């Protein structure tokens, strides 16, 4: 099997799995088996692309070329492969967790749920392996549409309102800004292919470059730059596995991944560094990462707090991209991986707490640590990783970002990063601390016994927590993969 076929398979396998799901009769066991097998198969496919990419190849395939110079094509390069690995790997865990969660909560419409999930993963694969900006845009929209039924899964008025905000903001920004910027880019450069060193270099002046980059950044609504971040908290109405999908596996990661891709392969970091095109975006992102952390502090609802935390963490990636130097890019890329692992742990925990106790407010969680020791231990580890403390994966990302901003002599950003880290500590640590160190509300319930969520919920969150630790020790090999990303056009 050639590598190009593998690329195509990466798209088709989840799609086929999703279709199979809808065909089977309403037997939960068959359904779950299909989901798991598909997820594992996909992960293996993604892994089998590594040898080629590590050896410096970029396997690619052109699906169609409706307009001259503009094709629908797939291509595997290091950045995309990394994103694909994260998404497909976490999909296995999310599936496992989803089974536990959905069964534990007796949710309705489970087939539709897993079907849309599969489509979303297919779209995420499309985004990861898109060979040009147009293909990326298609899968970006596909992801938005496929996740909409997931967000409104509960079907009540709240869910519909949240869904409307979700769809409205993502659609508006992507068509209004992203598509417009894409068209403009095509008009300027005559191509939309992702090329090392960018395609815009000879075609734009500093002013246009800045407008374009700003359009791109705001257009990628999934990256949740303020003021287009509202959809993320709104989407909190969704079931927890969906939140995991949104925050860790696919959606927001697709957003920042898109910005990284555009920075590296459309503009080229040299263009951004030379013209200062990223200035506006960089300051907006800096503002976002501080303000979002402050807002997170004020939220008592655990999922809302995590949502604002995500908004802030995403801006780290954008800042890293806009620094436009090697350290910044490495930091940004690592942040995608580390945040995914950390945040999915936190959400899994939030979900597990909900399944076991039906509690959503942080102030209600006093003393829960002894009832659910594994969950809260994992939550603590995840928190540390998000904050960026060693010995956890997140520290690498923060470290490189700090180096990058020092290299770019952006002292305000250095300060902002430090302040934000302090704020992270302030809003994450108390959750675990309350659970372990404060007495429960009603001590008369007798001796606390361990009453964890179903095993299918707890195992995945332990795995991801362990993953966060492991990533710290494999930071170097991750670094190697990232350093394969061609930041500049190769000299002939």
């Amino acid at each position: 099997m050639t590598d190009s076929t593998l690329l195509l398979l990466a798209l088709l396998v989840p799609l086929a799995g999703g279709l199979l799901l809808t065909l089977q009769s309403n037997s939960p066991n068959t359904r779950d088996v299909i989901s798991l097998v598909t997820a594992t198969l996909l992960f293996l496919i993604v892994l089998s692309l590594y040898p080629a990419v590590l050896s410096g190849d970029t396997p690619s395939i052109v699906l169609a070329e409706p307009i001259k110079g503009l094709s629908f094509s797939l291509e595997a390069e290091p950045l995309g492969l990394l994103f694909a690995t994260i998404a497909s790997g976490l999909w296995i865990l999310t599936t496992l967790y989803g089974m536990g969660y959905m069964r534990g909560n007796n949710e309705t419409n489970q087939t539709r749920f897993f079907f849309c999930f599969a489509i979303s993963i297919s779209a995420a694969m499309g985004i990861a392996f898109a060979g040009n900006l147009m293909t990326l845009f298609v899968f970006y929209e596909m992801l938005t549409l496929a996740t909409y039924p997931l967000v409104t899964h509960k079907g009540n008025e709240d869910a519909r309102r949240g869904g409307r905000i979700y769809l409205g903001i993502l659609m508006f920004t992507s068509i209004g800004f992203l598509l417009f910027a894409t068209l403009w880019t095509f008009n300027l450069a005559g191509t939309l292919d992702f090329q090392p060193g960018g395609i815009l270099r000879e075609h734009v002046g500093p002013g246009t470059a800045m407008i374009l980059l700003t359009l791109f950044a705001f257009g990628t609504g999934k990256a949740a730059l303020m003021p287009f971040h509202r959809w993320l908290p709104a989407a909190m109405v969704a079931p927890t596995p969906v939140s995991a999908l949104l925050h860790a596996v696919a959606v927001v990661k697709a957003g920042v991944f898109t910005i990284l891709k555009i920075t590296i392969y459309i503009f080229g970091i040299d263009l951004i560094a030379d013209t200062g095109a990223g200035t506006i975006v960089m300051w907006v992102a800096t503002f976002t990462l501080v303000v979002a952390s402050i807002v997170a502090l004020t939220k008592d609802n655990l999922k809302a707090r995590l949502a604002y935390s995500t908004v802030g963490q995403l801006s780290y990636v954008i800042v890293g991209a806009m620094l436009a130097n090697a350290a910044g890019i490495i930091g940004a890329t690592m942040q995608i991986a580390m945040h995914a692992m950390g945040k999915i742990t936190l959400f899994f925990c939030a979900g597990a707490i909900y399944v076991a106790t039906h509690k959503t407010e942080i102030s209600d969680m006093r003393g829960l640590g002894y009832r659910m020791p594994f969950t809260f231990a994992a939550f603590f580890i995840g928190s540390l990783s998000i904050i960026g403390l060693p010995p956890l994966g997140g520290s690498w990302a923060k470290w490189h970002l700090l180096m990058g901003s020092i290299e770019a002599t952006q002292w305000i950003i250095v300060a902002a990063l430090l302040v934000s880290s302090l704020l992270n500590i302030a809003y994450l640590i108390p959750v675990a601390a309350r659970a372990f160190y404060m007495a429960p509300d009603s001590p008369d319930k007798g001796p606390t016994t361990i009453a964890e969520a179903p095993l299918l919920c707890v195992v995945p969150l332990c795995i991801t927590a362990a993953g966060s630790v492991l990533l710290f020790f494999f930071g170097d090999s991750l670094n190697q993969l990232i350093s394969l990303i061609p930041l500049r056009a190769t000299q002939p």
Partner: protein
Amino acid sequence: MIEQLPAIQLLLTLLAAPICSMLRNGDHAWRLATAATWLSTVVAIMLLIQVWDGGVISYQMGGWPPPWGIEVRIDELNALVLLLVTLFGSLVITALRESLRGVMRHQRQSLYYTTFLLCFAALIGITITADAFNVFVFLEVSSLSTYALIARGRDRRALTASFRYLIMGTIGATFILIAIGFLYMVTGTLNMQDLSERLPAHWDNRVIQASLAFFTVGIALKVAVFPLHYWLPNAYTYAPKATTAFLAATATKVSLYVMIRFLFDVYGIEFAFEKMQLSTILVPLSIAGILIASLVAIFQNDAKRLLAWSSVAQLSYMVLGLALLNASGITAAISHMFNHAMMKAGLFLALAAMIYRVNSSKLHDLAGIGRTMPLTTGAFAVMGVGLIGVPMTAGFVSKWYLISGTLDKGWLPLAALLIVSSLMAVVYIGKIIDVAYFKPAPPQHADVREAPLSMLIPCWIFALLTIYFGLDTRITAGLAGRVAQSYLGVS
């Protein structure tokens, strides 16, 4: 045989019409009509293959050479229009039987098919002719049959809509007649080729200038260019359900073709656009049309009327493309003519299938139809997505060229406006899809079943074509691009 194809193209349906009118049995009439139209489609494909590489077929009616006799002339542009009319028309007529069943008595049915065939034949006649006056004659045949078709709608407002269309359409046609008269007055000929050769000597003649003005107003009425679109929304809304699909696919598109043929070939780009500055009128009008009609569409609560207003907006896209007067713009106009015909016909047809089951096109009656009629709604969704202009569908290709056209001109704000209008399309199509999938079906529609296969299959052919022409654009944008090049290369 091969050299007789242009005449055969017209005759198949023209001869079928009177025979059809004599059949008492509606089913026989339907069989005759579908056979004639599908054969006609085959001929259209053969003609398209013949002119594929820029060839031109000229056929002399009555054996008289032009300009004395009437010439039929087929080049790449009208071969594409022929394909549009025949293919999409045939698909709709195939689906027609089911939608008429139970609504109309048998003999009325044959008359109805006759009217369809006449309209079909007349549209072919308009498309292939190279004689200015002949255009007028066939335009009237097609218009009269259209009025009759619309007037058969079930709501009494169909009658008013049809009457209004008759008045406006006749004024438009008479304006075109005046324009042709003026052309003849100054040049002494009616053949388009001959006209285009003789006109440059008379550019300063006020009669020719007035002729252009009358032609533009007249054809704009027929194309429904904003603000002369007044007749269209009601006509589409109240026409019988499948008829709307036919009209949306063919009638306005052929009028648009006539517009292109006259402005670009007969009057010539240099006269119409450079000397007379037609763009300065058409561009603002079409922009206003796009924005206002899209906005109005958003606030409709009847799916048919919503799509009708969307048609006004989409027609304005095409006119805008022409008025941009660059390769991308003209390519956009011509390929969107084809793509929009396909998608709108499919949308109206899918809607017809829904109305067939729930007897209403009101949005609240379509609630939950995504569950009761999943296949029909699926096809509708695919084509709706195409209409919005999502990549991998046909609508994307033409919109892409259109926006490229505005960017080539350096009109960034206009490109932004077009994007805004796409967002509006997202809203109005989303409105229908939201109702269909995310709202519970009203209790009285609980036993609604999937549409019959004879309607479902054409719907899905339209839907699959929407995707096919989004991926393979050799026939649409490729050919349109060559036509655009040839228009711009000469000037």
